């Protein structure tokens, strides 16, 4: 890989590293449409200058970028996907810096490293783009649910035979399962009265607490990667200390271990809420997902990891979901894998500098193996 000589301390040694530095410098916190537009302008300009064909998909102010090797197509063999939004951070984190073999900054690991590699790959094969059949999808809202990013792109009809989405797994272990997800908002109504006369009122908070206790009893006491879990994340009720609250509400974050538990828990929570006279609204959801390492379109990536890094991918279970949930309804197999790094969502987010290049090499090999147009163009529009 060509290496650029850069001055100063805050640089990565490679062209890919330079792209990553530029991407990290955009503080694309979820919902900041203006900054996201700047990043997308940069990425789009880079890709179109090298022969890719681009289009933007907009949903409720959120803009995604789709780049294809051929004009006007909505289908490809391989989808290279990544989200460009990040969680908030101290301003200093929006400048990439290198500490030994670690690259630090907001988004280096989650997940601008992937965008940098995708862009570098296009540069690598710019003279032979017609030989390949892939698309790059950059979305703006994964950290806040993805409902207007990848979901909107899929709604526009974009499809692929397989998707690389490096937003899961750990240390080259490919994610083979992720938990399902329910986020409920439960609201209880009572009868307000003066706090000195509790017998005249019906405290909505007490109702809510009773429902919470009943829901919590559906889950095992011991929690971990191998169990369904519940977290009460927000609870509020009452406006004045000397009044019986007439309304109270809470949100619960539930992760389910498999399809059966996913449905069982939903049904049980709905029944408990109905029996208690409370309302229960779903504010977010996703099904459990699985990936088969022996799938013919995933196995080549497994081989590439093994050959380049020496790591044998055996699978990894994720407690959380990602934008991959929007691929599942369309039966698109996906590869979710992080290279070496860590500290997602914390002040210590980092990516191994060598792993950045390894990811570049692995993905290039995969693209050569799976992403070529062996038998002519894919299914057209």
């Amino acid at each position, binding site marked *: 890989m060509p290496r650029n000589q850069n001055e100063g301390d805050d640089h990565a040694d490679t062209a890919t590293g330079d792209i990553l530095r530029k991407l990290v410098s955009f503080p694309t916190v979820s919902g900041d449409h203006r900054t996201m537009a700047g990043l997308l302008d940069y990425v789009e300009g880079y890709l179109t200058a090298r022969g890719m064909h681009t289009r933007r998909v907009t949903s409720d102010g959120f803009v995604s970028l789709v780049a294809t090797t051929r004009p006007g197509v909505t289908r490809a063999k391989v989808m290279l996907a990544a989200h460009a939004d990040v969680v908030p951070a101290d301003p200093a984190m929006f400048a990439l810096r290198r500490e030994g073999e670690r690259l630090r900054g907001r988004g280096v690991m989650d997940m601008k490293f992937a965008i940098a590699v995708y862009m570098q790959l296009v540069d690598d094969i710019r003279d032979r783009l017609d030989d390949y059949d892939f698309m790059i999808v950059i979305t703006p809202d994964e950290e806040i649910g993805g409902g207007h990013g990848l979901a909107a792109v899929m709604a526009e009809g974009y499809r692929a035979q397989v998707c690389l989405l490096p937003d899961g797994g750990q240390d080259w272990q490919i994610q083979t399962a992720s938990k399902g997800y329910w986020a409920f908002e439960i609201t209880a109504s009572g009868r307000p009265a003066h706090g000195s006369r509790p017998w005249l009122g019906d405290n909505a908070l007490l109702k809510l607490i009773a429902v*919470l206790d009943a829901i919590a009893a559906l889950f095992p006491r011991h929690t971990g990667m191998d169990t369904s879990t519940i*977290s009460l*994340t927000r*609870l509020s009720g009452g406006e004045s200390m000397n009044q019986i609250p007439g309304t*109270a509400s809470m949100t619960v974050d539930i*992760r389910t271990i498999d399809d059966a538990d996913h449905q069982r828990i939903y049904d049980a929570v709905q029944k408990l809420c109905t029996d208690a006279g409370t309302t229960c609204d779903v504010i977010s959801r996703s099904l459990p997902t699985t990936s088969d390492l022996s799938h013919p379109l995933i196995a080549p990536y497994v081989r590439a990891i093994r050959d380049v890094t020496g790591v044998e991918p055996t699978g990894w279970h994720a407690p959380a979901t990602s934008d991959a949930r929007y691929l599942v309804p369309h039966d698109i197999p996906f590869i979710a894998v992080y290279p070496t790094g860590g500290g997602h969502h914390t002040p210590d987010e980092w990516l191994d500098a060598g792993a950045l290049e390894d990811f570049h090499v692995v993905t290039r090999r995969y693209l050569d193996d799976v992403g070529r147009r062996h038998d002519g163009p894919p299914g057209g529009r």
Partner: protein
Amino acid sequence: MIEKLRILNRKRTRSAAPELSALKSASDDGLRNALEAELARLVALPTFSSGTDSQGSIISLRKRTSSQESAESIEMIAAELKKYGLSVTMFEQEGYKSVIATTRRTRRPHIMLQAHIDVISANTPELRQLRLADGKYMGRGVYDMKFAIACYMQFVRTHRKQLHRMDFGIMITSDEEVGGFHGAKPLAEQGWGGDIMINPDGGNDWRVESQAKGIWMADIVATGKSAHGSRPWEGDSAVDHLIPALNEIMQLFDNRNKLAPTCNIGKLSAGEAFNQVAGSGHAVLDIRSFSEADVEALELRMQRIAKRHKVACTIEKLGPPVTIDEESPLVRSFAAHVAAVTGKPCRFTVSYGATDSRWFDDPAIQNIVVRPHGGGSHGDDEWMSAEDLAKFYLLIESFVLDNAAI
């Protein structure tokens, strides 16, 4: 008829009740018109308790600020009372103004007539003007409690030439609806009071409160460690501490028993983001009891529960239980005057709530809390009996004339 009453009082001993002829003055058109005009003027004053901040915790309750209109109303009343030759003292704390006007230069007149001028918000324009319908005065503050101020002002106006022969005072504060921390409380601490204080802020339908529950506030705070909602085992949910603690604390109280200590969870909040384990939680409890000893015992048990569930529990007394001596001469005299005005024996009752009278918890002070027929306080239908407005005036007039003469 007022002259007739006055004459009647000179011939009577202090403990005797006024004669039945005094009741006829309740229908005196002149009196009723004057009282109605005064009440209308007071209701139109926008003396709303400010403080849209509804944090509800002990600290934030005390940090609410006064409304400009309440302060100006106090100043207006002070100026009027001064015109009648009363000794007027202004008091201000945290922007809340109070006025105390006495016939003599003393902090402890024989009789102190007490009231608060602040009212809670009025949601509709209709509530901000006095209306008369079906024998009821309606509007924000008619019952809670500007009717009392109207009567006090009318009494001073009517008897302005004889005030120097009486020993009484009028105390009007502007923060009762937000706790009284900057009005009645510091005034009591500074020694203001009376041998008997009359506070028409409770005791509905002419029933005099013989007992009122004290009020305590408890802050329960839980501190945990937040984590991503998908990895609860990496965090320590504050809710897992707070809710079990609250469940156990509520088991200590029987809220169906009006005479027992009661506990209400008034406010509760925990967590920030819908996909994050709650790192902190906070509940505010409202405890009422007739017995301080009961609350002291409960507090010990609450602290043990708090310790077991690793939450912090802070309990503060906001006002002690209040009792009056029904057999004291002053109370008996008052009861006799109530009977004379209403035509029925005076009855006593207990109260589950608290008023500013709790700040004057002193064995030397008899706190009378009573008001006429009315209702709907804090609601959109606040009202009081139009006939009872005049009767209450006559009660005050006859009692003060009978007991405050020097």
